[in-house]
């Protein structure tokens, strides 16, 4: 059979010229056509938006300028991680706000992780009461909006704690805790702060000037962690070669804690206790109500979500793994720590990233309790005092975007490291 009329043998496309209608009816071109049309519509939409914005700004007699960032802010900020006063610029105030956002985010992420892991593991406990208690915690916090929790914690702090004046007098109605070192008042919690008798001064970096003492301590801590890693690696190598693992705990302790203790002694570190002076407690570190309410609100609320993530991660590990571990004679605690959790991590980490991002973004609720984060400084008072809504909001969006992408990127690197290695 050599019939060319047989449709089964006609595999080549008909040699036709390109027609305009093929853009719509030919599958090869249709998707491209749709995409190009859509792109044009999108660009038109954006152009209209920009044009509309420009026209409206002109109608209001406003220009588009970020010059306001260099003008004096004029307002004070209570929680100042870096030096700031009302004569400094709006840009500086925004930076203070950003640092406050970062402080809160780190504190809340830490609290949420600790609470979440504990609650997630305990919810799987065979102890009925413990498991049910954790269920109550998860369901209670997960199902009430975080803003409500923040306000509740703020109200508890302001309404039910004693005023600083209650600590005064010969027979005060309130007492400081822990050997007169911690005062819980309705204006926040005052804790001792670490001070150095030999102050090395600050490291001038232009915008910020961190204390040299703390930089050295941080460097010692990081160096200690790396040294400890090397020690453990060496121990593993010895164990692999000889079958006996050398005792390392005292070496680890020495490299982790030793340098820090030496530095503390060298710097003449001492604790500065909060003391009543004037209207308030002076000295010490002041953890304001706003910070505590935000920290507890965000940390405990998100902890409930983390607990569920941890629980799902553990349940994702097949039962055979724990049975195998038990067969080897591992106790339940060790089974969890050495067998289950390391495998569960790769299920846990990706959703954990989004919880960390949630916390970071939810710090912008700080305005509700007067926490001076980026939203309250740049996105709140600065916008209000300068009238630069568009610029301020765009800048704030950009900063949150960069911070979130940064966290996401860092966590993805961690995720890649703990991911199941396929060889």
């Amino acid at each position, binding site marked *: 059979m050599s019939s060319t009329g047989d449709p089964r043998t006609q595999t080549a496309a008909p040699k036709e010229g390109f027609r305009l209608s093929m853009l719509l009816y030919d599958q090869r071109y249709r998707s491209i056509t749709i995409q190009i049309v859509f792109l044009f519509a999108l660009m038109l939409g954006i152009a209209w*938006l920009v044009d509309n914005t420009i026209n409206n700004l002109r109608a*209001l007699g406003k220009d588009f300028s970020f010059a306001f960032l260099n003008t004096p802010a004029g307002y004070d900020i209570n929680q100042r991680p870096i030096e700031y006063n009302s004569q400094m610029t709006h840009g500086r105030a925004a930076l203070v706000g950003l640092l406050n956002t970062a402080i809160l985010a780190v504190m809340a992420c830490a609290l949420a992780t600790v609470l979440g892991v504990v609650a997630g593991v305990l919810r799987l406990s065979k102890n009925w009461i413990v498991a049910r208690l954790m269920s109550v915690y998860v369901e209670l916090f997960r199902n009430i909006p975080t803003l409500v929790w923040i306000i509740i914690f703020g109200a508890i702090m302001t309404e039910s704690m004693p005023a600083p004046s209650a600590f005064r007098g010969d027979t005060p109605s309130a007492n400081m805790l822990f050997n007169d070192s911690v005062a819980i008042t309705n204006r926040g919690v005052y804790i001792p702060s670490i001070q150095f008798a030999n102050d090395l001064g600050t490291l001038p970096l232009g915008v910020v000037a961190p204390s040299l003492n703390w930089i050295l301590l941080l460097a010692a801590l990081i160096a200690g962690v790396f040294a400890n890693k090397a020690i453990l690696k060496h121990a593993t190598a010895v164990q692999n070669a000889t079958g006996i693992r050398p005792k390392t705990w005292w070496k680890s302790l020495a490299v982790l804690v030793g340098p820090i203790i030496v530095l503390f002694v060298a710097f003449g570190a001492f604790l500065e206790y909060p003391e009543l002076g004037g209207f308030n407690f002076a000295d010490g570190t002041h953890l304001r109500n706003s910070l505590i309410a935000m920290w507890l609100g965000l940390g405990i609320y998100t902890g409930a979500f983390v607990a569920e993530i941890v629980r799902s991660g553990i349940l994702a590990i097949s039962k055979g793994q724990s049975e195998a571990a038990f067969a080897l004679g591992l106790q339940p605690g060790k089974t969890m720590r050495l067998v289950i959790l390391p495998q569960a991590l790769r299920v846990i980490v990706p959703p954990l990233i989004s919880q960390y991002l949630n916390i970071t973004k939810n710090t912008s609720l700080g305005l509700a309790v007067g926490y001076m984060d980026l939203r309250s400084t740049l996105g709140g008072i600065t916008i209000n005092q300068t009238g630069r809504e568009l610029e301020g909001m765009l800048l704030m969006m950009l900063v949150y975007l960069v911070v979130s992408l940064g966290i996401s990127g860092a966590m993805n690197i961690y995720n890649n490291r703990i991911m199941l290695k396929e060889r």
Partner: protein
Amino acid sequence: MKKTVLYGTLAASALLAGAAGAQTLEAVQSNGELSCGVSTGLAGFSAPDANGVWQGFDVAVCRAVAAAVLGDPMAVSFVSTTGQTRFSALASGEIDMLSRNTTWTLSRDVDLGNTFAGINYYDGQGFMVNRELGVGSAMELSGATVCIQTGTTTELNLADFFRVNGMEYEPVPIETNAEAQQQYLAGACDVYTTDASGLAATRASFPEPGNHAILPEIISKEPLGPAVRQGDDQWADIVRWTLNALIAAEELGVTSANIEELAAGTDNPEINRLLGSEGDLGGMLGLDSDWAVRAISAAGNYGEIFASTIGEQTPIGLARGLNAQWTQGGLLYAPPFR
């Protein structure tokens, strides 16, 4: 692709609200309702009563404008604004006028794109403390915790006052007056600072007002007045001259009781021009000739409004002070109706 669409939609919804018409008068008349921005609740100035009807000194200005423009003092929809949202609400066209104890400053007038229509209350920033503290002067407040509404001029004055006098303080930023009141009463701050009138109004709503003292220092000038969007001069004129009509009415002895009789015509040409029985001042504003009669009938003249909302006979108990007519030693001085 999907992402970009999302961004586009978000941006669109954010900016659509920004379109503001220039012809506010027509917009208000076609809506049949004046949208007026007020505070979130400050007794005596603007707060809803037991029936949910907004009452107060600032509210009365809104009602007078609504009466002048629409003929019905109740045709007002009130929008609560905080210190932070008020100017955005005005600029975006959400409200037609702002009557919310707002201080007239150069930057707000020029840079924020507002036009202030006059001053209805001459105020100054003061401090309130609990008498238990035994503080007699603001100069003794070093180290105090101060509750302050964010996004206000008082916030800036406070920073300046403490800095210039070399004193320390701990600001507790707060969004609304009600929240500040709660924090202050709970003792979370030693001092509450805002305009002296606001302090008096807040104190009046305390369970035991006598326990709280307003310190003698007034640290700033706070001329409060209604504001409109910049760029609509006709609307600004209407609000400005409605306020002037209330002030002039008090000076000329026109009250809500005698206005009907006076509107028929009097010997005083100024009253006749104000009330429209002579000349056509209303027409110049784009309104009819009875506009001022309706504005004054709404809640009375300036003095009557003051007396019934924040005056000495009310729980707020403010004296006229600077807010008396210029003939009585105050600062109120309406330009002539001519």
